[in-house]
């Protein structure tokens, strides 16, 4: 009796809740998707756009990133007094977890930084919540502003599942390279070829030092080590084709196995930090910064910290290839792209704003605030040794079109899948062939579900 009453009220409350939340989650696809308004034909005159408030969500919250966006926002509003920029700054994680709800809601911001790949940008494209900006790209000549891979990374097919081609959705401001940092006190002549690099690793091991500082506890760093080597072993096009999931592209190829074999060999020979799978990413690079270890394979996001602690004793270069003097190849990419939402009432102003954030003037501002501009414009040369190395490497990679994209863009779960598989392979639990086969199986499974 009692129990049935309690049950009754539970059912009643439950039914109400169900009624309230009923219907297919996400609602009807066609009704909630705003259509792209008009295609822009000529460069719009923003000064005549009337009083406009542009709401912008970005994640430029750290150090030099925050400095550049504040400066550029100030300059843009000075140039167009009729435009007011309402900036909503969020951390990377916070932005990624809240963006989908905000953009699909009734008060969507006009310009948002949407992370590349299937996780965020792909889903927004699929839901038609972002506005393709190819018309503006034509008017402003954006195609000439970037190396082609960097534009491709911000492109998506309308289905939202294929990226690297299709419509352009945004522009990024900053570049990123994963390369080799070296301690200049220990590495007096930087290696020119992969073979030389391996000789230096062996010599470092013999001297009792850690050849490559490496912490893989966080799962993802192994992807950077593997792909950096992969870039020297496999043709860059095959890596790009795999990441962009071009038909016929596969992870299970002899070149991908060779890269796995090489890095597994390094692990066996003790070229990495002992117990790297149990060592955190931060402790590893911090040890390198304190002078332990010859090399560190990591991204340019560590430049500020390493320069602060090591001064002029640290250098940076892309991992050398098989032959000296060949075109450089490195894992890299760009910062989150600024995109225009479909619900924005002022796409013209939004596009002009994005143009302003990435033009020659912006390039100078970025360089002055210790950022690495992704654009092809010449920027004032940095003065510090390390930032100079990075800028040189970026320029060379841009000229040679030598960037390969992060593999974790491939499928939504790929970062975790690949990171875990690399931990297994480096621990010697999987052979290089098992590794590439297993990873490809995970990609296939993810595509079929």
């Amino acid at each position: 009796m009692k129990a049935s009453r309690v049950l009754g009220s539970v059912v009643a409350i439950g039914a109400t809740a169900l009624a309230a939340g009923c219907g297919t989650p996400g609602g009807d696809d066609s009704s909630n998707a705003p259509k792209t308004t008009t295609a822009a034909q000529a460069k719009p005159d923003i000064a005549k756009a009337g009083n406009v408030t542009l709401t912008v969500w970005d994640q430029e919250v750290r150090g030099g990133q925050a400095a550049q966006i504040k400066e550029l926002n100030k300059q843009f509003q000075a140039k167009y007094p009729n435009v007011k920029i309402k900036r909503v700054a969020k951390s990377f994680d916070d932005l990624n977890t809240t963006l989908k709800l905000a953009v699909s809601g009734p008060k969507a911001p006009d310009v948002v930084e949407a992370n590349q790949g299937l996780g965020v940008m792909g889903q927004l494209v699929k839901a038609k919540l972002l506005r393709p900006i190819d018309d503006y790209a034509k008017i402003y000549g954006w195609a000439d502003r970037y190396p082609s891979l960097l534009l491709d990374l911000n492109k998506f097919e309308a289905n939202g599942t294929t990226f690297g081609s299709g419509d352009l959705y945004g522009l990024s401001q900053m570049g990123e390279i994963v390369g080799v940092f070296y301690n200049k006190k220990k590495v007096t002549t930087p290696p020119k070829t992969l073979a030389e690099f391996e000789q230096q690793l062996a010599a470092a091991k013999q001297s009792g030092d850690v050849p490559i500082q490496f912490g893989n506890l966080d799962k993802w760093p192994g992807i950077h080590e593997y792909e950096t080597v992969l870039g020297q072993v496999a043709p860059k096009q095959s890596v790009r084709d795999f990441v962009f999931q071009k038909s016929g592209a596969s992870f299970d190829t002899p070149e991908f196995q060779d890269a796995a074999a090489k890095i597994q060999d390094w692990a066996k020979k003790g070229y990495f930090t002992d117990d790297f799978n149990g060592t955190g990413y931060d402790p590893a690079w911090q040890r390198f910064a304190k002078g332990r270890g010859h090399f560190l394979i990591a991204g340019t996001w560590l430049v500020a910290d390493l320069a602060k602690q090591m001064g002029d004793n640290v250098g940076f270069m892309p991992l050398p290839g098989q032959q000296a003097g060949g075109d450089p190849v490195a894992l890299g990419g760009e910062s989150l792209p600024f995109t225009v939402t479909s619900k924005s009432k002022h796409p013209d102003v939004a596009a002009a704003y994005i143009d302003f954030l990435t033009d020659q003037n912006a390039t100078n501002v970025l360089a002055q605030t210790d950022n690495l501009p992704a654009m092809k414009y010449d920027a004032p040369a940095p003065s510090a040794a390390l930032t100079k190395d990075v800028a040189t490497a970026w320029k060379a990679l841009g000229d040679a079109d030598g960037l390969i994209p992060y593999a974790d863009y491939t499928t939504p779960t790929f970062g975790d899948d690949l990171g875990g598989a690399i931990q297994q392979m480096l621990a010697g639990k999987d052979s290089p062939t098992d590794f590439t086969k297993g990873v490809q199986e995970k990609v296939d499974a993810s595509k079929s579900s």
Partner: protein
Amino acid sequence: MARPVATADTPVALGRGGGASADAPEPARRVRFGGRARDRPPGEPRRVAYLYLIPAALIFGTFTLAPLVHSVWLSLFQWDGITAGKWVGLHNYADVLSDPVQREAFGHALVLLIFYAVIPLLIGLLIAGLVARSHIRGFAFFRVVLFLPQVIALVVVAVMWRMIYDPNDGPINETLRSIGLGGLAKSWLGDFDVALPAVGLIGTWVMYGLAMVLLTAGVQKIPRSLYDAARVDGAGPVREFFAVTLPALRGEIAVALTLSTIAALRNFDLVYITTKGGPGTSTSVPAYQVYERAFLTGKVGSASAMGLMLAALIFVLSAIINRVAERGQAR
């Protein structure tokens, strides 16, 4: 960070919800208990009693039941969080049961149960047994110190233990090497066989204080006369423990086990910060998978199904623990 924690909490909300609905009959009982209720026209006071329930029921319904029912609804869809979902019926549940990685995660949660619930309980019982025999000078101080891990935010605990477990500079390995046991030094969180127990030990460190405080408090309310009687009957310390202390602590043991079981199964923070489920998938747990699916990979339906199955598991285990404890008390 706020979001992951909220996800990890979802199952607990149900766990608590389960407890709350078990308590719900209480007002009705009170009406009968009064006895005088029978003197009044039957029915009326009972109806009035329901009015008192309305505020609580509304809050409970809005913030616990409605989201729960909604996630049941969501678990029947393949949904990425924004575009229209696709009805897949029970497919998400079948998927959890058939996918080795997800099944494995439940297995890991059960292993953690030993470290979070069983071992802390045994430590707590040992200390309680000792306290029952003798008075320890300054015990209040030790109790506070031993309880401290419970008070520290789990995120802080996890960051600290990552440093402690560091294979190169961490104090555990350094100590082992300095006393000549370098052979035992390990890559604690990076070794495929050791990582799960290593994460579990952090849980033991966090939970044993709770078990100890509950159990020693329970010991103090056992009448001394029972111990005196046992001693007169010639019971030694071990006999005394099993004959007097253990049966009297049944209620406290149930509480400690329930709390620590819930903590073990909903464990998210420790895994997220220490290993992200790695190396490979050797420390992946259901709560981490729920977070990953819901917020990183846009598989909201699958995350809901996994969360609900985890919630059901927690509910069943707590129900069993309480049923066993109650049966004992009735005796």
